[in-house]
């Protein structure tokens, strides 16, 4: 059995025993007990007043309270009714005399009890729950209603039942109630006791009812004192709280003061640090200034965080901090977006390797307001791990200017050295260039336009090579531009004709292109240098006479005489040798290594006659270096010597000069040439397949064929070889190409020796015509078809006398070229002097007049137009030159020609056509 059950059983046993005790003492309603209980004394009044006041107070409170937790209306009604009855009890039923009054007094008594229970409920149980009270109220009202229903002798039983139910309720509550406050238990116990005491009074066990009031008042007192005590406690507690708040307040005030102090301190610190930082910045700016550098710090939003230096100084912004760097630094939107996207990539990069990798993609050089800057980029992390980009910009204008100046000076000195060293060649090149420029005014529109443009291209290409030889950079650049333009025209042939082209070319003013370099030469070497060109090219006669005179004086083997002679005649080998430097230079430019070798027979030629050839031969050397020779490492891998050899072999046979130029490079890529030819649409695949290798190799000589897929400045446009072929064919020679894979290319050039095509019939005709002309001049008669009988041509070998007499050489040029050598003895010369009416100047042995007479005679002989090369037009006779015997032998000694001696009464005449 649990404790609860034990208590329940105890309570039930107690109630039963109480019931038994009371039942034995139940008497009539008018018994002493009920009277006692109803008798009104001052305690009864006080209790009634207190209860009524309390109930009224509660009623008032509940009337004013707005909440609707309970049914206030019922409560108010109940309270008011109870208090009304209690008051009525006190005022009306002072002394119970009749049975009705006793019944009424009992009812009042019940209500008093009921009111007290309500107070108990509210104060002690602090319970406003409706259910318990409702049950109790209903029960008590039913019981009190019984007061008027039963007979008077049963009234005592009703009263006891009423009290008993109150006790039961209170016990029930007491038992069920759970509270920690002992005072409330005591109070409840006391009230319980007073109710039980009342019952005992009713049953006449006790007589005086005052004791029950005492119990109740003690109980109430306890409750109130407890309440007051609680209130005091609460007050004390709040006092304590107040104290604590005060303390807290003081502490806070102190804290505030302290914080203010520390704030001041921090403020000082900050301003100190700020000034220090400012100082630091100033120092930094000073350092940047001293280093002549610029520094920009940029955050990941492209905003400038710090900027100092020349780079952005001129940007026109006062305060750069916070501006968008990309917009400030770059005018060009494309550049700006590129910079932004690269920087974004850098900012997003995960590691320093990627940082640097992407940074290296930024511009290393920037030009900003006409200044050039060398840029360096670094990534730095701030304390908060934020990435910033540091840009260092060094002004490099002075450096580059200086460097450019030095480079320029080097180029100029290269040019000057080349020009001075080969001044004679330079002037003849210059002359032919100017001559060519003149011809451009009127282009031949008979020929197909494509051919015309190719011929122009070839010439310009050649001149480019020629001037490149003299390191004339500006000229080469200018010519290259013209060349590129012409190539563009080739793509757009339909819109052009030769007139337009000629106008265009005049627009380029080719003769002005060369001026920039010529001005430099003029400035450095003086005007006289350029003017001196006229001294070298004209008046060979004077020169030859000088050679004769000097030779007679100091001996023909003297070194000075030889030097003088070489002014016009040069060894092929030495001409070729003069390309060595040029070849070395272009090899250097393409970072290849080349040895240039010239070997072979010695043969002297008239450079003037071959000048075009020697100009165009440049292309072959360029081809060798650019296409033929491999890079050193490639050569090594093939097992060749790293240094390539370009060799020129000069051979002479009876009537031809053979020049073999060969390299030991990779040879011509025949496959590539085939591709190229196919792309150009010149041949079909079947045709190309049927060609032999040699044939295809020779096709590179055609226009527009190049094995290089990408042309560069040096070679690859496919024009060079065309101009070589053109020149060689003009000279009556021919060129053929042989190639062997990885063994190189050989260009064999065959040129007719001297200057004739050696057509015996042509020579004979020419010789005859000259003889006829001579007869008509000497005899003073008009020209006939055949020679006079007295004029007989003796075709014996050259006689000694031929060389002893005064000799004149004259060149006749048509489609072919011939030299005419005329010799006359003194008798004939005097006859000529008479004819030309120069006798008044002739005094004895005046050689000058003799020479002049002969020259006039020779010129008159060649005045006619001759049938040369199948055409009878456009023959040009050059000025005659008086030759010494030695030069004559040297120049023509080995040449075969048609020779004839004519002995007539007027004298002896020798005619030699070569």
């Amino acid at each position, binding site marked *: 059995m649990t404790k609860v059950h034990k208590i329940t059983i105890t309570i039930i046993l107690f109630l039963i025993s109480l019931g038994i005790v009371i039942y034995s003492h139940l008497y009539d309603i008018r018994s002493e007990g009920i009277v006692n209980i109803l008798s009104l004394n001052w305690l009864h009044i006080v209790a009634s007043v207190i209860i009524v006041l309390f109930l009224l107070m509660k009623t008032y409170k509940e009337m004013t309270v707005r909440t609707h937790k309970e049914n206030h209306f019922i409560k108010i009604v109940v309270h008011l009714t109870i208090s009304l009855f209690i008051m009525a009890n006190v005022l009306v039923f002072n002394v119970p005399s009749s049975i009705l009054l006793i019944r009424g007094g009992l009812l009042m008594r019940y209500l008093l009890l009921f009111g007290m229970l309500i107070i108990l409920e509210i104060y002690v149980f602090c319970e406003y729950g409706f259910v318990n009270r409702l049950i109790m109220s209903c029960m008590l009202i039913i019981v009190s209603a019984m007061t008027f229903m039963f007979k008077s002798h049963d009234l005592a039983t009703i009263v006891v039942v009423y009290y008993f139910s109150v006790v039961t309720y209170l016990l029930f509550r007491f038992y069920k109630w759970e509270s920690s406050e002992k005072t409330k238990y005591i109070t409840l116990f006391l009230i319980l006791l007073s109710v039980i005491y009342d019952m005992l009074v009713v049953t006449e066990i006790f007589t005086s009812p005052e004791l029950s009031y005492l119990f109740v008042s003690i109980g109430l007192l306890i409750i109130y004192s407890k309440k007051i005590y609680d209130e005091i406690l609460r007050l004390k507690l709040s006092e304590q709280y107040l104290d604590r708040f005060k303390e807290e307040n003081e502490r806070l005030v102190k804290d505030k003061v302290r914080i203010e102090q520390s704030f001041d301190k921090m403020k000082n610190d900050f301003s100190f640090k700020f000034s220090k930082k400012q100082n630091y910045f100033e120092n930094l700016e000073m350092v940047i200034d001293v280093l002549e550098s610029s520094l920009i710090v940029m955050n990941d939003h492209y905003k400038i965080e710090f900027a100092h230096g020349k780079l952005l100084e001129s940007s026109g912004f006062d305060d750069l901090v916070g501006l968008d760097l990309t917009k400030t630094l770059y005018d060009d939107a494309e550049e700006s977006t*590129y910079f932004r*996207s*690269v920087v974004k*990539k850098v900012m997003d990069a995960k*590691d320093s*390797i*990627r940082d640097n*990798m*992407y940074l290296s*993609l*930024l*511009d290393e050089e920037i030009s900003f307001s006409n200044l050039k800057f060398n840029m360096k980029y670094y990534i730095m992390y701030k304390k908060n791990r934020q990435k910033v980009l540091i840009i260092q910009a060094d002004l490099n204008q002075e450096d580059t200017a200086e460097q450019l100046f030095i480079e320029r000076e080097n180029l100029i000195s290269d040019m000057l050295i080349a020009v001075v060293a080969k001044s004679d060649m330079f002037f003849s090149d210059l002359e032919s260039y100017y001559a060519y420029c003149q011809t451009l005014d009127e282009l031949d529109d008979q020929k197909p336009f494509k051919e015309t443009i190719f011929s122009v291209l070839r010439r310009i290409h050649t001149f480019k090579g020629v001037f490149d030889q003299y390191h004339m950079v500006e000229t080469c650049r200018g010519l290259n531009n013209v060349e590129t333009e012409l190539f563009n025209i080739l793509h757009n042939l339909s819109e052009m004709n030769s007139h337009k082209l000629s106008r265009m070319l005049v627009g380029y003013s080719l003769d002005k292109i060369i001026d920039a370099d010529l001005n430099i030469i003029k400035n450095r070497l003086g005007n006289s240098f350029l003017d001196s060109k006229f001294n070298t090219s004209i008046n060979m006669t004077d020169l030859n006479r000088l050679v004769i005179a000097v030779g007679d004086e100091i001996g023909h083997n003297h070194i000075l005489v030889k030097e003088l002679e070489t002014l016009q005649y040069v060894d092929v080998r030495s001409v070729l040798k003069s390309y060595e430097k040029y070849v070395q230079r272009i090899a250097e430019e393409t970072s290849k290594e080349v040895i240039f070798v010239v070997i072979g027979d010695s043969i002297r030629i008239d450079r003037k006659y071959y000048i075009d050839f020697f100009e165009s031969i440049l292309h072959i050397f360029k081809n060798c270096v650019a296409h033929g020779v*491999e*890079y050193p*490492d*490639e050569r090594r*891998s093939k097992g060749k010597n790293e240094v390539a050899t370009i060799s020129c072999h000069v051979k002479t046979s009876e009537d031809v000069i053979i020049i073999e130029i060969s390299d030991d490079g990779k040879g011509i890529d025949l496959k590539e040439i085939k591709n190229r030819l196919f792309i150009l649409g010149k041949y079909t695949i079947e045709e190309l397949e049927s060609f032999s290798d040699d044939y295809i190799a020779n096709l590179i000589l055609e226009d527009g064929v190049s094995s290089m897929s990408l042309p560069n400045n040096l070679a690859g446009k496919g024009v060079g070889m065309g101009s070589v072929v053109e020149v060689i064919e003009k000279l009556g020679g021919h060129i053929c190409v042989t190639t062997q894979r990885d063994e190189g290319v050989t260009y064999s050039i065959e040129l007719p020796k001297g200057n004739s095509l050696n057509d015996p019939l042509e020579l004979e005709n020419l010789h005859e015509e000259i003889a006829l002309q001579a007869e008509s001049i000497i005899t003073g008669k008009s020209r006939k078809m055949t020679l006079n009988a007295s004029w007989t041509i003796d075709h014996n070998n050259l006689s000694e006398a031929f060389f002893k007499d005064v000799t004149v050489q004259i060149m006749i040029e048509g489609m072919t070229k011939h030299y005419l050598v005329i010799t006359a003895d003194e008798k004939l010369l005097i006859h000529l002097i008479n004819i030309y009416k120069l006798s008044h100047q002739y005094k004895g042995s005046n050689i000058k007049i003799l020479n002049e007479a002969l020259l006039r005679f020779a010129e008159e002989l060649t005045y006619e137009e001759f049938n040369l090369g199948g055409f009878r037009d456009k023959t040009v006779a050059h000025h005659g030159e008086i030759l010494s015997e030695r030069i004559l032998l040297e120049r023509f000694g080995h040449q075969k020609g048609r020779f004839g001696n004519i002995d007539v009464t007027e004298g002896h005449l020798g005619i030699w056509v070569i």
Partner: protein
Amino acid sequence: MRVLLAEEHVTIRKKLRSMLEKLNYDIVCETDNGLKTYNKYLEYQPDIIFMSLTLPLLDGINTLLRIKKINPESCIVIMSEKSQKKVVFSAFENGADHYIIKPVELEKLKQVLDELGIMKDGANYV
């Protein structure tokens, strides 16, 4: 390490080959145009591809895109002229792993390969 070499100029290719062999790389294939490079990549699945940007037929960027589409993990080193930085950058945008400036120098090549190794995290590229 197996390497594929895509470069249109014979000389540069040979030079690079000798360098890479000096560094003990295994060159599985050499190609001279973009299309071939792509096909050879599929065939050999090399670890590193050295690729010029100016390949004929299919240029470097497009070849790169195709290869990266097949295998985004593939490791591609771009070779370019100094003046082509913008193209190099667009190659990076399309997933290139590194680049090297032509003409290639041995020291630079070593550095690039080292950095590749670090970037690819631990893989033994050297």
